[in-house]
């Protein structure tokens, strides 16, 4: 991510975000925010302020090593001097304390772990998270963000961020028919001004679909591209096809059977399209998301994965399928998407 991706366009922030941004550092905070609400950026800006105003006595902790690496790009961009910890590493170092403890993705920790953070805090803590995004449901007893305050004698200030700044409204309308157990749809939740209508294109066969994608990439009509597919074997097929069409691209590949085959070094400073599975795309975002070879998703897990993939765009969503429009896309009202690759334009 570029430096400015870790800074804010302050004039575009809503009142809730402004309150988090402008809050004093002399009280602990718990910030609960939905996907796309800018939590991680606000967490690092909090660290930047502490460093500028109070010095280096702070620690930033996240749950996974992968997230730690992602946050580290922000650390360098914002000139933060302290190393960040992933949770295991922090524990291994005997849970070092600090005046200020900042934890992102707090929803992935259990009660004891959160208590350890609080105990390690000499002055104030700043927790950022979203219960809805807990990825360890059923695997560990994570504590809902809303319940953290009940653990404290001196209550922390709680902020809620409700608005999604990433997902364009036309895409938000479409994915309502794909997601599972979603809350009631409120268009005002989505603040992005991007207005491109999603396209569902019937193109027979993967090869023709990738050929079409390759053409759009080569003529420069799309940029910052993610090509998301359902399965690992599709990643291999798309890789071979893109090579045959002469398109440089990068892969993210998780081989569950042999970790030696994993590929995970996406370089976001290149213009190369990135190819990966729906699952691998969680947490990432692209200007244009292509979903080739979409097939019916009858069960909840398949629909959830498709939902994750469709919501990775901050501008264009282009879905490709063979034969009939697959379920649950077939449920979507036709006025919410376009069926052609291009719009009709009359010469002036």
């Amino acid at each position, binding site marked *: 991510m570029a*430096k*400015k991706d870790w*800074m*804010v*366009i*302050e*004039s575009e922030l809503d009142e809730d975000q*402004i*309150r988090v*941004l*402008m*809050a*004093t550092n002399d*009280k602990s905070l718990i910030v609960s925010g939905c996907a796309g609400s800018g939590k991680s950026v606000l967490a690092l800006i909090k660290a*930047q*302020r502490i460093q*500028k*105003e109070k*010095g*280096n*006595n702070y620690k930033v902790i996240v749950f996974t090593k992968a997230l730690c690496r992602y946050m580290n790009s922000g650390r360098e961009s*914002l000139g933060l*001097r302290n*190393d960040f910890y992933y949770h295991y590493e922090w524990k291994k170092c005997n849970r070092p304390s600090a005046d200020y403890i900042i934890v992102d993705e707090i929803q992935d920790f259990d009660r004891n772990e959160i208590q350890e953070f609080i105990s390690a805090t000499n002055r104030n803590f700043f927790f950022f998270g979203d219960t809805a995004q807990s990825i360890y449901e059923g695997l560990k007893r994570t504590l809902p963000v809303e319940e953290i305050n009940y653990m404290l004698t001196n209550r922390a*200030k709680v902020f809620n961020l409700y608005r999604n700044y990433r997902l364009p409204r036309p895409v938000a309308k479409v994915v309502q028919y794909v997601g599972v157990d979603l809350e009631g749809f409120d268009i005002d939740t989505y603040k992005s*001004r*991007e*207005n*491109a209508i999603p396209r569902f294109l019937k193109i027979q066969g993967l090869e023709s679909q990738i050929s079409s994608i390759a*053409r759009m990439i080569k*003529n*420069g*009509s799309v940029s910052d591209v993610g090509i998301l597919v359902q399965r690992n074997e599709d990643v*291999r097929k798309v*890789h071979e096809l893109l*090579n045959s069409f*002469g398109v*440089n*691209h*990068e*892969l993210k*590949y998780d081989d569950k059977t042999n970790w030696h*085959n994993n*590929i*995970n*070094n*996406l*370089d976001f*400073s*290149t*213009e*190369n399209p990135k190819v990966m599975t729906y699952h691998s795309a969680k947490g990432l975002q692209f200007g244009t998301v292509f979903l080739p070879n979409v097939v019916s998703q009858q069960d909840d897990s398949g629909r959830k994965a498709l939902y994750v993939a469709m919501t990775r765009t901050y501008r264009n969503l282009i879905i490709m399928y063979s034969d009939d429009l697959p379920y649950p896309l077939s449920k979507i009202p036709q006025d919410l998407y376009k069926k*052609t*690759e*291009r*719009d*009709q*334009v009359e*010469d*002036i």
Partner: protein
Amino acid sequence: MKKLYIPTTTLNFNNVLSSESISPKSFYEKRGFGYSRWMTIPENPFDNCIVLYDYIGNVVRPKSELEDHPLLIEVELDENMVKSVGDGMYMCDHTIYLTPTSTRFLFFSDLNLKITYSMSESSLETKLWGIYHKKIEILQNVGEPYKIINVDDLSLNTDAIKSDIKINKLKGLLYGYFIGKLLSMSIDDVKCLNAYKEIHNIFAAILSSFSKQPTVAQDERLEELFSYINGQTPFYQKLSVIVDNENVRKQVLNLIRETYGEVRDEVNKTHYLSYLRSNNEENENTAISWIKSKILDSEKGKGKYGLSTIGLDDLIVVDGLLHSVKGDFLSAEVEDTILKTWINSTLLKNEYNGRISTYREVLATDITKETKSVCGDELWGKSTYKTRLNNLRHFIAGDNVELEWGKDFISALSAVVLYGENWEKLLSFMQSKEITDYGLAFALYGELHGFSNLTRDFTDVLYSQPDRGSLWNVYREIYGQLLGEKLPDLINIEKEGDTESLLQKDSETVKMETIKEKVDPIMNEFFGSDEFTGLGVAANWYKKELMSLSYIDADDFLSQMKKLGKKKDAPKSTKRKWDKCVKFFGKAISESSKNQAKEEPLLFDVYKEFPIGDSFYCDVNIMIHIEKFLPEDSSIRNQFKEDLEWFQNNYKESYYDKKKGKQEIGLYKSRNKENAAVIDNFGNYCSNKVNLDVENPKMKYLSDRYRKIDIQKIIDFLKKEYKVNV
């Protein structure tokens, strides 16, 4: 002109510095650009007007969970611009445009200033610190609290809002033009940069592939790109002059490779491809690090134009409209009219405001219609404008059409419509099309986004220019064109003894620097020096030129002084003597700065700004604190700094070795990282340098330098600061 004070809260500070103006609260909600928020306070409570006071009073903000602190903004205004309501109070129903010559930001405490500065750091639109930092001050004595105004609000001045919209867009246009010119590159540099970027794309693709090997197509393309890059090295260029025949050249090069292993400065494709095969995901791949550093180097300081060489009158705005335009992007008279129509009519519409991707189809159609209207049916029917603009519309709609790219005005507009969402993307796209002059494209970009929305990383291209005199000239030109007022020459302000000058000290406030006080005594001494009198009869010419220089700080003065010797009308045969004079003057300025730094309070205490961390082995600030123990000799300081950085890096798992240009494993990565152990190790490391083998010239060089450093003093200091028991 009257000096007036606007009480407000620091919560508005970033807003003010994004637009360089202050407006009545309702303007922010209604004008549709920049911030829509403005926080009112009891001393300034109205929606439709700003309250100003003619004295410095006290402002107290209630205790809050937000960083809400008092702020006074001092402005100088013509009394006709404000309405007096008695008791030293005034009302103003329009935007007040700020300038560093007539504005001061007055904080009530060092802490408030520090917090406000820190909060501005994360805000991309807060972009004028560099211009105003000398006008940001801390009030030492505050008066009585302000009286609260007790009259009705004024009615909303809608004409003033319309004027603000126009000024914001045209200010974006003018800033965009100068910044675009500064970003412009020569064709050779653009080609080189494109080659590096393409290598980066291919390397990243190989690295994240299954085989970690290039495809045939990638390998062939890499071969071409590496050949191109090698062809640009001085050695190859010289060889091409000496040896005409390409085959003979190849034979010579092969002979060098066989004999010496490598041709100096040559980049070897095979070498980097082998790095891509030995990937360790923990650290950045060496080949990727290398290519990224080449891209960075290629982007740095490759400007085609210096700030002083850009014509201040290339674009002229008069009365809120573009009046004239110069540039080789126009090739027919009608194009001048078309471009002015775009700028004065189409792009000036308020609906085209930032976020170009949300309206690019509508904008392209609007532009096409306007152009047709200017051309008339006959010209339009046979013109290339019709084809190119309609092709642009087809391209946006998803048609597979080829667009033409060149230095013309339609290319500039097309690039902005397609890629103007983000300035770096726009720049990169134009570079990829081997366009080399970006003035017009970024002018259009600036107008569509408006000045207020321009981000700091973009405007810093201009504000960070070292030629401060030319920067001031550009600033003054833009201000004059937009607001019809001429800002003074800084040097003239000083000469006239204006007590409110930009750089004047004020008894009530603490100032950072007073340029006149710094330069004048040195100048007087200089005129009496042997160096100056040695110029003989030419001295009079130099003295006259020196006295008429406009400058904004000592560095700027020195930079302009150097240029005097190169002026066309400079007395002949004095160049060497003048260079000596400049050297003499520079030394005097430098000495003066050292003394002054000891006496004058700084805006931010550097030691507080860069506090010592918890662990010595990873504390990047510590060098700042150690510097005071090192001799003045810069070669010793640089050597020590380099060695300290190396020492600290070696406690990491791995690090990028700048000298070797590759990733290295940390030698001390498994050692004890407790401060006591690390400091002891550092003590030994430094002592070893003192005792190096002096028979070896390289070692002698190092040893000589370390002998001049009081190592024990530094070790004692480190132990004290990191609380290590002695």
